[in-house]
């Protein structure tokens, strides 16, 4: 099966500019996650979708970050305006969703590395 697709792989912007990342999960996966991984740290959840609804966005800095999954398939994460501390790898992951065997095993994309200058 095809994996989780993410683009772009790399992005360099200046502070106060905006950036958007795209993710296409594994076909049939109902749950989609965006994680932020700062250098030297483990991934930290930003937002979780179940189909096209937000399940958890408690750690999303909503003053500058937004995400959507309008049709319950692919998703976009946006940062506007970016700050220096947003430099990180943004990981997208997907899972089948609850109620099925192996439902909560996450499959990760390759990530989008953001550098804010």
């Amino acid at each position, binding site marked *: 099966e095809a994996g989780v697709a993410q683009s772009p792989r790399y992005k360099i912007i200046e502070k106060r500019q905006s950036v958007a990342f795209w993710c296409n999960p594994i076909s049939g996966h109902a749950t989609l996650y965006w994680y932020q991984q700062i250098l030297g740290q483990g991934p930290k*959840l930003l937002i979780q979708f179940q189909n096209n609804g937000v399940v958890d966005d408690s750690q999303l800095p909503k003053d500058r970050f937004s995400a959507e999954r309008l049709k319950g398939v692919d998703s976009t994460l946006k940062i506007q305006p970016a700050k220096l501390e947003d430099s990180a790898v943004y990981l997208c992951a997907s899972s089948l969703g609850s109620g099925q065997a192996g439902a909560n095993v996450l499959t990760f994309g390759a990530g989008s590395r953001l550098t804010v200058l």
Partner: protein
Amino acid sequence: AQRVTQPEKLLSVFKGAPVELKCNYSYSGSPELFWYVQYSRQRLQLLLRHISRESIKGFTADLNKGETSFHLKKPFAQEEDSAMYYCALRDWGSQGNLIFGKGTKLSVKP
């Protein structure tokens, strides 16, 4: 608060030596724990999870609720085991999201 601690940032061993990557957790409920691995230039992937009680690539991990630990072990390290290893805890109080530790870089020398 739910937390995962990996005390070692870097672990360096020689090929054929035993390996133990430490993971301790703090969780008020019944824990569900995972080990994820990231090889150089590859994406993060699941290595094993405690509910499966499986051995993957020679690695095992036993959940010790008394010590709140989930250490990853392998009796004889191979050079291809060199990678970043992340311990993760499922937080059912937060929609089942994963809480990751900071990771341990394993370096296996020839």
